[in-house]
């Protein structure tokens, strides 16, 4: 997966199954621009890029407006075959908010097109011309021939300025992998690599004081690997200037540049906290338990995310936080943890609460007066990413790989903050937005989060405690702090005893959804509360699944099983631990009545149980009915004994 970051544009989600149908239907929409951009915001191969480009062509031909996309006319000239590249440019530009029209000329005619004042390129009033030239186009063979090649490109630029008025986008050259002398190729002025180095350096120097833009193809090709970038077979076959595998990333880079030229690059990075800025869940693991230490194999991955965020801030990107956390618990890490790189003064807005993140990001956007299309949202949790993509489609939300070591690289590879210049204003921008981690009050919810959850195809699994689940049950009982009504800790032996105790009722709860198995997310223990009641001794849940009505489904299960066993009431109890504020009103919200003692809550199980909002499975129960008690299973061997 990681090896294909640049090849597969792995920060973009995969194309949906109905991609083709949606492209076909786009012309029927009132405002097709938004849908085109949404469709383009997927990792697309050549056929799908071409489908999108064709749709843009058809819409433009019919005179349809592609608002809110920004129109841009780009001349594309090059010494190789551009037929595969042009559709990719048009489709990828959509991703960056640009409705691109390309002006192309027949293969091999780029020099004539530049030099002839009446040529198609010069007549077309292009906003910019991309000079897609590689080293094969330039006289870079003889010793000290770089200045000759530079003069040639300068001449091209001057002609284009004079005849067309267009800005030029010029490419640095990607050196070929074939060395002539060996390591000395960098030093010897007749060696190809030395010539390419000299050319690239001088090319960039000559752009100073001009409106022209550099497209650093050399950097892109080196990032990918020169031997992968240059494909002799494909050049020979069809004069493809680089391997077709990299057309999507090349085109995405052009899209970024066009967006930067039109000031459409992103300006604000909103960060999740737990398992995004540090390893672990601070509310459960405690400030001492999170992984962020320098030199620590896990912690270093998260430090790299913090370092990148700080580097981005130094170049003018505004930072904010949106996290499902207790505000005080989350802020304490920024104030007191010695290994943290990010501090509150680096953050404009700090939203740590239990509301949905779409509402929070909207509030951040309004507070900073920055449009949602300026925002990037970084979160390790696919469900949170999905909510933002659905509710706030203008916000860029990168996919993240399984290994946090690659989070920073993935965020950087997405190129959200492309900029063609770096001014004093940029340097000061982050300070301008400085609000020192201000907390913003939330207004109305931005949308129907429940409808989104319903689309996740959730299935909840209920089972009594058993040997297979035991170690995870013990871990949750001893680790969970936030969504934990009583914070009672039990040893492994005590949990094992509960498995056999006929008077107690236990539940281990798992949740699966379209993103996969969330694992065990809730644990409940009920003990007899005579006469005829169950006291809920323990009820805890992972905050990762908060807001997905798991509590209601667990209550439903408790009510059904209680009735089955002739139990008439459930007795809940909240014990404040200093860290479980969030569940203070848990029983009241679920319809329990206040009991005669403080923090004791009672529910008569004759009340109608909550309606199911997801699929429910009880695998163990089925097994027990068929074959009696499950025989104790052999312990799985440990990896290292």
């Amino acid at each position, binding site marked *: 997966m990681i090896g294909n970051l640049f090849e597969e544009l792995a920060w973009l989600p995969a194309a949906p199954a109905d991609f083709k149908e949606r492209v076909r239907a786009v012309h029927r929409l009132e405002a097709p621009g938004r849908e085109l951009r949404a469709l383009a915001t997927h990792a697309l191969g*050549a*056929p799908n890029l*071409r489908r999108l480009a064709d749709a843009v062509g058809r819409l433009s031909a019919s005179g349809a407006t592609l608002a809110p996309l920004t129109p841009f006319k780009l001349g594309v000239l090059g010494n190789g075959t551009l037929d*595969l590249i042009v559709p990719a440019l048009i489709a990828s530009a959509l991703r960056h908010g640009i409705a691109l029209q390309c002006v192309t000329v027949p293969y091999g005619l780029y020099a004539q097109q530049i030099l002839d004042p009446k040529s198609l390129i010069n007549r077309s009033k292009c906003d910019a011309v991309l000079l897609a030239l590689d080293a094969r186009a330039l006289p870079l063979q003889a010793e000290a021939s770089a200045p000759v090649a530079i003069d040639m490109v300068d001449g091209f630029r001057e002609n284009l300025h004079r005849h067309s008025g267009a800005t030029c986008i010029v490419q640095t050259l990607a050196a070929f992998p074939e060395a002539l002398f060996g390591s000395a190729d960098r030093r010897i002025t007749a060696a190809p690599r030395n010539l390419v180095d000299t050319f690239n350096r001088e090319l960039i120097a000559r752009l100073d004081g001009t409106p022209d833009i550099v497209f650093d193809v050399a950097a892109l090709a080196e990032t990918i690997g020169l031997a992968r970038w240059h494909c002799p*077979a*494909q050049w020979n*076959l*069809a004069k*493809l200037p680089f391997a*077709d595998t990299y057309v999507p990333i090349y085109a995405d880079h052009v899209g970024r540049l066009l967006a930067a030229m039109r000031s459409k690059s992103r300006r604000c990075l909103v960060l999740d906290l737990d398992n995004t800025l540090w390893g672990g869940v601070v509310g459960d693991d405690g400030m001492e338990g999170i992984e962020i230490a320098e030199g620590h194999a896990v912690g270093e991955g998260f430090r790299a995310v913090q370092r990148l965020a700080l580097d981005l801030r130094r170049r003018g990107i505004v930072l904010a936080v949106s996290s499902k956390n207790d505000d005080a618990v989350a802020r304490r890490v920024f104030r007191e943890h010695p290994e943290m790189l990010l501090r509150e003064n680096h953050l404009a807005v700090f939203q740590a609460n239990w509301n949905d993140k779409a509402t929070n990001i909207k509030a951040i956007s309004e507070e900073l007066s920055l449009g949602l299309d300026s925002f990037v949202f970084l979160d390790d949790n696919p469900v949170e990413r999905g909510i933002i993509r659905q509710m706030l489609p203008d916000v860029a939300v990168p996919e993240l790989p399984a290994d946090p070591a690659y989070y920073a690289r993935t965020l950087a590879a997405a190129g959200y903050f492309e900029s063609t210049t770096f001014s004093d204003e940029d340097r000061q921008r982050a300070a301008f937005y400085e609000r020192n981690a201000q907390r913003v009050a939330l207004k109305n919810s931005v949308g129907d989060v429940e409808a989104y959850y319903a689309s996740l195809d959730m299935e909840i699994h209920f089972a009594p405690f058993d040997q297979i689940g035991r170690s995870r049950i013990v871990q949750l009982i001893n680790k969970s702090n936030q969504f934990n009504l009583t914070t009672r800790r039990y040893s492994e032996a005590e949990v094992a005893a509960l498995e056999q105790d006929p008077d107690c009722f236990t539940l281990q709860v798992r949740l699966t959804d379209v993103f996969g198995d969330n694992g065990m997310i809730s644990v409940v223990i009920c003990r007899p509360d005579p006469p005829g009641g169950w006291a809920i001794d323990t009820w805890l849940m992972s905050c990762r699944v908060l807001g997905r009505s798991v509590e209601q489904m667990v209550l439903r299960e408790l009510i059904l099983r209680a009735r089955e066993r002739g139990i008439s009431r459930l007795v809940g109890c909240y014990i404040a631990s200093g860290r479980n504020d969030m569940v203070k009103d848990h029983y009241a919200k679920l319809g329990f009545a206040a009991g005669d003692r403080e923090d004791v809550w009672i529910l008569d199980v004759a009340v109608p149980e909550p309606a199911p909002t997801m699929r429910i499975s009880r695998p163990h129960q089925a097994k027990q009915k068929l074959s009696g008690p499950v025989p104790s299973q052999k312990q799985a061997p440990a990896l290292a004994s």
Partner: protein
Amino acid sequence: MLSTDNVYERLNKLFRDVLDDDGLVLRQDTVAKDVEGWDSMANVQLMLGVEREFGVHLSAGQMQALRNVGDLVSVIVKGSA
């Protein structure tokens, strides 16, 4: 080694995708001029698509020697062995 049926199935999917023709059915004796849109640029995309789909490399010499889809299938089956 890949089965010929499996290669035809995947080739059909690939050709339909590249040529945007959901009704296309490749046969052993299918040649470029039988298929709308199978021009020289499409041919390049098809060959590159074959390389990616099947993890094989087709040299220019091998491509030049292909007379029909059946030849392409044989090259793929041999190359993936």
